[in-house]
Every structure is written in C-alpha cells, then in structure tokens.
C-alpha cells in the first residue's frame, strides 16, 4: 500500500502485453516468460530471470514471435519448452515452441517450433499443461471444443487423442487442469465452469450461472477452485458442492481478471484486475478446509479483512500474474502497458 515501490520492475517489454508465465522446470533460477501483444509490430517473448541477489530482473533471452500472444504457458518439465496461443490478424493458432540454445549471445535466435496444434475449428483460447510434472498429454481449448493431445517431444509430433465439443452456446475462454487428478480439467466460459473427465470426454460437474473470467485449482487441496468473475469478485468453490461458493472475496473495483493460488501457502490468493491493481488475499484456514461444520461457527466471528495487500503501482489493467514455483513468496505481474513487476510477499506470509 505504500506506493508499491517495493517491486522489482522490468521495463524491457516494448509493447502491450497480457501473458506472463512462471518457468516451472527451471530449478536453478526464478524466471518468467512474458509475451507481448502488438497488432502491427513484431511481437516478442522475453525470458526474464531474477538475478541471484533478487535485486533486478534480467532479460535472459529475447525471441521474436509471429503474431500477438494471447496465452502463454511454460512446460512444467522442460524449461526450454513453452506453449503460446497467438493471433495475427485473422489467423489464430497455438504452438509449442522450443527455446534455442543461447550460448551466451543474446542476439535473439529464432524460436524452434516443436508442435503446432492445428485443426481447431474455432479460435484457440488456451493450452494447458499438466501442472505438476511430466505428462505426455496437452489440452487445447478453443471457443467450443476441448482437444486432448498426446505429445511426443522427441519426435516433435502431437496427435489428437480425443476431442469434444461443448456446444455453440458456450464460448469457452480458458481452462484449468486439476493438479490432483490428471483426468479432470475445468473449462470456463461466460456463464459456467465445467469439469470434464478426459477419459470419457464427458462433463462431470459444473458450476452454473457464474461469469468466470479465470479459475485456478488449489494446488494443495483437492476440489477447491477459485474463480474470478467480472463484477462479482472472487468466489471459492468446493467442487463437491457446486451450488454455492463456500467463501467469497470482494475482488476488484472493476473486473477481476486473473486469480492464482500460491503454490505453497494455499491460503494466499493473488488476483489482478482491470482497476490496475493486484490484490493479495488471505483466506481463512477453515474455509479452505473441507468446509463442513466448523466453518459455520467461525465465520461470524471472523471479521478479519481478507485483503492483505493491494499493489497499486500500475498504470494500466493487469492481466497477467504468476507465482514463482521456485520461490513461492515471489510473484510476477504484467500490466497491459508491458511492465513486469516482481514483488515479494514475504512480509505477509502466515507465520507457522
């Protein structure tokens, strides 16, 4: 709240940008990937690394990318792989890229295309990796379909294993893969959040009548999902009881755009919004529990403000946030004007 000058700023992105992703597979460094969104210029993907002293952000690699990047995800088991959903004028596609060996020089070598996800009838919205570790499946989501790809990195091929259409009524905008169950993926659209079983490609569960903009599984507790909704803020759901959320957070002054659980401290939730702020929330421990009886007795007394901090040092809407999985007390945020800010939440961590 004190002017937000605590963050480490990276100003290397020259264009507007929406996407930032944590490079999970990089065990040695805290690094992030950020992709720009420029309609007319040549877009870039930046590999940003936090210097060992944690004092500055260094551009480790800069790669030109064809088309503006609407979605970016780093491969959780190979730091040199990442997926990107891009659009260029009317064309739209999704590709897994391989970052070339850098050998010290940073004269932006071309990215190597590993796999391209072709055959989508609609606009691809996002590519999902199994978030925990090595898995040979990748999911791609377009506005109306769900594709499960079987990926072979060494042979550089991806085959459609199964696909399912969710119908024309829903415009899917993204998805989240359940880290506790590799057969379940949640896809969300304007009006609902739907859970799909990948084995049968059937809808197993759904939360209706919510305007989900983003959703994130709790990485430490099964069945718990946080959703970011345009006007109505943030809701926390237990998927076993999809009729009503077990907790809600006020969200942002305008739309709540993105939401992420901290990979280690599952009570910490980060959200970003179009009111140019990033909010750090602390959900009460009971709520993220199985939320049965004991939460009832506690909820009236717990008048603690769930908002731990609001980072307001942004000029524009913040669309991208990512926790560092290597350093769970750090997160990177990306505002639309292309500014990457890495903040530490150490002072807000719950004391053990």
């Amino acid at each position, binding site marked *: 709240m004190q002017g937000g000058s605590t963050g480490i700023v990276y100003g290397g992105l020259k264009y507007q940008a929406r996407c930032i992703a944590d490079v999970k597979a990089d065990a040695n460094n805290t690094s992030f990937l950020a992709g720009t969104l420029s309609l007319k210029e040549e877009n870039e993907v930046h590999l940003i690394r936090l210097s060992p002293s944690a004092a500055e952000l260094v551009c480790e690699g800069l790669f030109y990318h064809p088309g503006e990047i609407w979605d970016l995800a780093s491969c959780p088991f190979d730091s040199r792989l990442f997926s990107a959903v891009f659009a260029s004028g009317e064309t739209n596609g999704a590709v897994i890229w391989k970052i070339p060996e850098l050998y010290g020089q940073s004269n932006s070598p071309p990215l190597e295309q590993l796999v391209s996800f072709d055959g989508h009838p609609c606009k691809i919205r996002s590519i999902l990796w199994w978030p925990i570790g090595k898995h040979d499946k990748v999911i791609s989501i377009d506005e109306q379909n769900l594709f499960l790809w079987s990926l072979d990195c060494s042979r550089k091929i991806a085959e459609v294993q199964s696909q399912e259409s969710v119908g024309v009524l829903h415009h899917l905008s993204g998805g989240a893969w359940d880290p506790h169950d590799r057969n379940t993926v949640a896809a969300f659209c304007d009006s609902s959040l739907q859970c799909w079983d990948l084995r049968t490609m059937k809808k197993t569960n759904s939360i209706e009548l919510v305007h989900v903009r983003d959703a994130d599984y709790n990485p430490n507790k099964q069945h718990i999902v946080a959703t970011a909704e345009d*006007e109505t803020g943030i809701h926390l759901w237990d998927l076993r009881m999809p009729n*009503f959320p077990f*907790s809600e957070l006020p969200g942002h002054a305008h739309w709540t755009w993105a939401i992420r659980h901290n990979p280690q401290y599952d009570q910490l939730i980060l959200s970003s919004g179009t009111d140019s702020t990033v909010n750090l929330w602390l959900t009460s421990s009971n709520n993220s529990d199985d939320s049965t009886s004991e939460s009832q007795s506690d909820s009236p007394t717990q008048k603690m403000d769930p908002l731990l901090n609001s980072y307001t040092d942004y000029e524009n809407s913040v669309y991208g946030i990512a926790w560092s999985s290597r350093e769970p007390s750090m997160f990177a945020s990306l505002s639309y004007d292309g500014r990457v800010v890495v903040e530490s939440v150490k002072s807000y961590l719950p004391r053990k």
Partner: protein
Amino acid sequence: MATDNAPPMDEKAKRTRELLASFYSTEASTAGRAVPVSPSRVATLDSINSPSFDPDVYMNLLIRKTNLEGLLHKHVEMAAEIKNLDTDLQMLVYENYNKFISATDTIKRMKNNIVGMEANMEQLLEKIISVQSKSDGVDTSLFAKREKIEKLHRTRNFLRKIQFIYDLPGRLQKCIESEAYADAVRFFIGAKPIFEAYGGSSFQECKISSEETMKLVIENLKGKLYSDTEPIEARAEAVVLLKQLNFPVEDLKNKMLDKLEDFLLDFHKESKRMGITNTELDEPNGASIAEFSKTINAYRIIFPDSERRLIELAQDLFTKRYETIQQRITEQLSSEALMLALRDIWSDVSLMDQVLPEAALPVISLEASRGVIKKYITGAFSALLRYVSEALTGPQTSPKGTEEQRTLQTALESSKKAVIQGSMDCLLDFRHLLDDTFELVTKMRDLIVDWVQEGFQDFFKALNRHFLMLCGKIDIIKNRVNAAEGFRAEKVQTGLVLVLAQLSIFIEQSAIPRITEEIAASFSGGGLRSYEYGPAFVPGEICRLFRSASSSFLQIYITMRTQKISTLLKKRFMAPNWIKHKEPREVHMFVDLLLQELHGVGAEVRQLLPSGLTQRHHRTESTGSTNSSRSNPLREDKISRSNTQRARSQLLESHLAKLFEQKMEIFTKIEHTEESIVSTIVKLSLKSIQELVQLQTLNRSGYQQIQLDIEFLKNPLKEIVHDEAVIDFLLKEVTNAAHERCLDPIPLEAPIIDKLIQAKLVKNKEPNSR
C-alpha cells in the same frame, strides 16, 4: 533497759524491738512520736522505727548535722522518750501478770464442777431404752387393722369407677346436649381401657351405648369440621378430638383437599373464560381468591401437616395463571393489559403469601413474571421486525412499471416510519412496564431495562441480517442450507436494494440516535449485566453495522446494475467478428440500450437519494458550449497525427499524455448521492467497454463503428454524469483502445460522424413524437 544496750547485746535488742513493734504497731502509725524532729532528718528519723535502724549511723548523722544546741535539745528529748517507754513497759508486764492469775483460778473451778455429772448420764440412757420397747408393742397391735382399711379404700375407688362407666352414656349424652365434645371425648377415652378389658362381658351394654353416643359425637364433630360457618378454632378443635378418637383424619383431609382442588379447577375454567371474553377479570377473581386464601388459611390451622399439598395447590394455581398470560401474550397483548394482569396476580400472590409463606409464592411468581415480561419484550421485538419487513416488502409485490416508481419512495417512507414508529411504540409500551409503582416491577426494573436494551440491540442486528437476506447477500456459510435453494434463484429487485441502503442510512442517522435518547431517558440504569459485557444496547456498534450495511447495499446495487450493463455490452462486443466488420452506417443500437439502462438507474436512484451535486446547474451551462463541438480538438489532432506515425510511438505518446494528464480517479469511493452512484455506474460501464474493445482485433470499419458509437455517447453521458473530465477521459480511453486494436486505424471524418449522429438523434426522436 533497751536504750543502754551495748552493741554486743544486739540479739537481745532485736528481740526487744520486735516485741515492741508488735505491741505498738498500730499505735506507732497513728501517734508518730518522732514527727516533731526537723524535716531534714526525715529519713533518719523514719529509720529509727524501721527494723534496719542503725544507731551508729544515726548518731553520726545527728552529730554531723546538728549544732550543739540542737544536740542538747535532742538529748533532752531522747531522754524523755526513753523514760516514757520504760514506764509503758512496766505497765504492760503488770497487766499480763494479772490476766494469768485470773485464768489459773477459772481452771481450778472447772475441775471441781465436772466430778458429779457421770451418774446423771447413766440414768438418762435407761429411760430411753424403755420408751423404745413400748412403741414397738403399739405398732404390732395396730398392724392388722390398717391393712383392712386399705383394702376397703381400694374397693371404694373401684366402685366409683364402675359407677362412672355406668353413667358414661348418660354423661356423654349430656355432653352432646351441651356441645362439650371435648369433655365427652375425654370421658370416653378415660373409659376406653376398661371397655377394652371388660367390654366383652360385664360392661357390654354400657360399652355399646356409649360407643353409639360417641358415634354421634364423631358425626357431630365431622359436621362441625365440614361446615364453613363454624369458627376456625372450633373446627381445628374438632379435628384434634377426632384424631384423639383414632378417627381416620387423613381421609377427611384428603377429601377436603380434593374438594379444594375441584374448586380451583372450576376457578380456572372460569378465569380462562373470563380471560377470553374480557381482560377485566379482576372482579370475580379477586373475590374467589380471597375466598381461596381464607380456605387455605383455615386448612392450615385445621390440618397443620397438610402444608405440602396446599403449597402445591397454590403454586399450581399461579403457574396456571401465568401460563394463561403467556398464551395471551402471543395474541398481542398491550403492555397495560399485561401489567394489569400481572398486578392482579401479584396482589393475589401477596394475599396468598400472608396465608402460606412457605409456598414461596413471591419467588415463584417473580420468576414467572420475569419470564412473562421477557417473553413479552422479545415478542414485541419480533413483531416489530415483522412489521418493518412487511412495510419494506409489502409494496414490492404490487404492480410494476410506473407504479413501482412511486412505490420505491413510498416503500422507503413507509419502512422508515415503520422503523421509527414501531420502535417508539415499543418503547412507549415498555415504559408502561416501568411506570408502574408496582412492587414486582420495582424488583425487576433493572432486568427489564436490560432486556429492553438487549432487545433493541438484537432487534437491529436481526434487522440488519434480514436486510442482507433480502438482498440475497446473506452470509453464505451461515445459511448454507437456505442458501443452497435460494441463493441464486432469488431475483433481488434493484429498487429494494436501494431502499435498504437508504433505510440503513436513516436508521444509522436518525432512528438510532432517537432511540438511544429515548432509552437514555427512560431505560437507563440496568447494569445487572456483568461489566465485561458492557451495556446491553450499544448504539455505536449498531450505527457501525448499518453504516457498513448501507455502503455494502450501495455496492450491491452498483454491482447488480453494472452486471446487467456488462452482459449487454458483452453481447455487443463479443458477438460480431470485428475483423470483418462492415462500414458503419449508423450508430449501433446498443447505445440506446445502454442509455436506457443508465436512465433507468438514474430514475431509480433519483427517487431515493439526494442528488448531491450543488453546482450542477452551473456545470451544465458551462459545458453547453463545448458539447456542441463534437470532439476534443486536441484528441482529434493526436489521432490524425498518429495515423501517419507508427503505432509504437503512438502508444508511447498516449502513455506520455496519460502521464501529463492528472491521473483520473475512476474508482472513487461511493457516496450516498445520486450523482455518485450514477457516475460510478457510468464509469464502470465505460471501463468495461474499454476492456472489451481491448480483447478484440478490429478492422478499419470496426474501429470507425466504435468511434462513432463513442462519439454519440459523449453528449448523453455528460447529461447523466456531470463530471465531464472523467467521461472525456474514459471515452478517449475507449477510442484509444479501439485505435490500438485496429489493424488499419483510420478514423471517420468529422462531418460523417456528425451526420450519422444527427440521423440517429432524429431517428430517436421519431418514436417519441409518434
């Protein structure tokens, strides 16, 4: 002799001195022979009489301290004293010698007298022995006659007893006639052992007849017992007598108590009937209670061991009466009537208490009336809550449309009135509970005060909860079960939310202070609650509650409204393929919907909230001139320039422009004014448009369409919102966003925009004029 003693004769001198001292001991203290000596010698002169007198020291002192003349004088004096002492001594010796001689004479005479006495004594002994033998002789001769006399005496007594028994029936009869039942019983009991012993044989007749008489006595006694007209003492006596006759009194008692119970039951039925028909039930009740207490009193005296049962009866009576009152509370009893009833019971209780203090009736009735009053107070509060919520939701179910516009206001007014009037009525009502100079109430005064305060506290909390529930914003976890069904299904009316917001404000700002005042005026004190809880009614807390509630209601209202607008906007911006957009022909119709929605908001809000803008008039006038010029020249200039420039520098430029512009506070705090709410909604809507545009990729026509729509929106929005700068800024943001997201951003020419806007305006007017 003593004076010329030499020092070796010390032993002898001491003895002499002692003898002298014992003789003169009394005389010395009174006479004080040596006193005339000079006062400086007191110590030494004293020591002349003391046992530790040392003649040498005395001499030394005398010689040293006295002159010759004094010494001579002393010598003369001393010599005289010695002479005196010698004569005294001589006299003493003579006296003692005389006494000794007379004593010897007396002893000699006694010896002579005693010699003749022995013979007389022997004579006396003989005489005594003869007397004894004679008396023995008389005794033996009289013995036989005495026995006979005793026997005769016994027979006479026995005969007298038999006579008594034979007379018994007659005597009993006489007793009955004279109503001396006590005597009768005494006689009968006296005769009883005889009857028991010989009743079978010789006195059979007598026994039967007297028993018959006794039966009559018992009957009479019973009659006496049962008759209420007899004095209580007589009845009590009858019971005692009956008991003496081994009559089963317990049965009698039980029978009588049963009768009493029946009487009570009747009494209950009666009072219940009374209670239903009218509240003025004191008259008949009072009479019967007096009667009842009299009976109780009598019974207590009559049957001293029947208290337990009586206590039970009395307690039962009063608990039943409190029950009837409780029942009547549910029928919305006024506090006067309640107090009347309570007072009534209390007076009965005190009446009973005089008779039956062991029943602890005051304690029980205090307890019971405490329960009754508490129930009454809570009942009153829940009725109030119901009343308010009816006032609130009542009109909402009435017809919609134009009527609803009226009803929003009336709903607010009526519910305001309901809150304040209801609370005041409640207070007034409760004050009746206190005003009474009624013993029971004075005991409970503090408690009542606490209850009232607590009641208000709880009432407002419940009201707040109720409000939240009406908004569907009730704490989800708490009402999990209810929420599961009604959470989403319930469609909350936006107007109601606004009414709630205003009502909360009203409660916080006027109702609470007024109620606090009232409470302070008549319900202060209390303090029976332990101090850790503080006073029961905490206006500050309630105010805080409602303040936060009212702002959250506003927030909910805004959320609900913007949600509606958002869906509208999303439909508009997500659906078309903007890359293949056709050339703009006219202003898109979504602006109409948007404006209509905003006007709807304005109309709704205006009904209930103050406009909150003092310089409103002034503003509209001043903006009038700039309104006509369609667009900000600076911005137009910038856009036209940027056409030729690269997009990147344009981005930079817009950033720079933003830096120099004062940072717009888009998301300001919401105030309770029409202006604040409407402008917040407009701002949020425009921001939404911007976000939605940023998600799209536009072709030139798409961009132009948005440009056109935004241009059109400019004037009507400025009419709605008076903060022109913010609107300008946000609209510019939208066009900038569209510009950025456009593949080929060439804006429409100003005249074309003008033309299209005019066409739209004309078209909009047409249906109105039609």
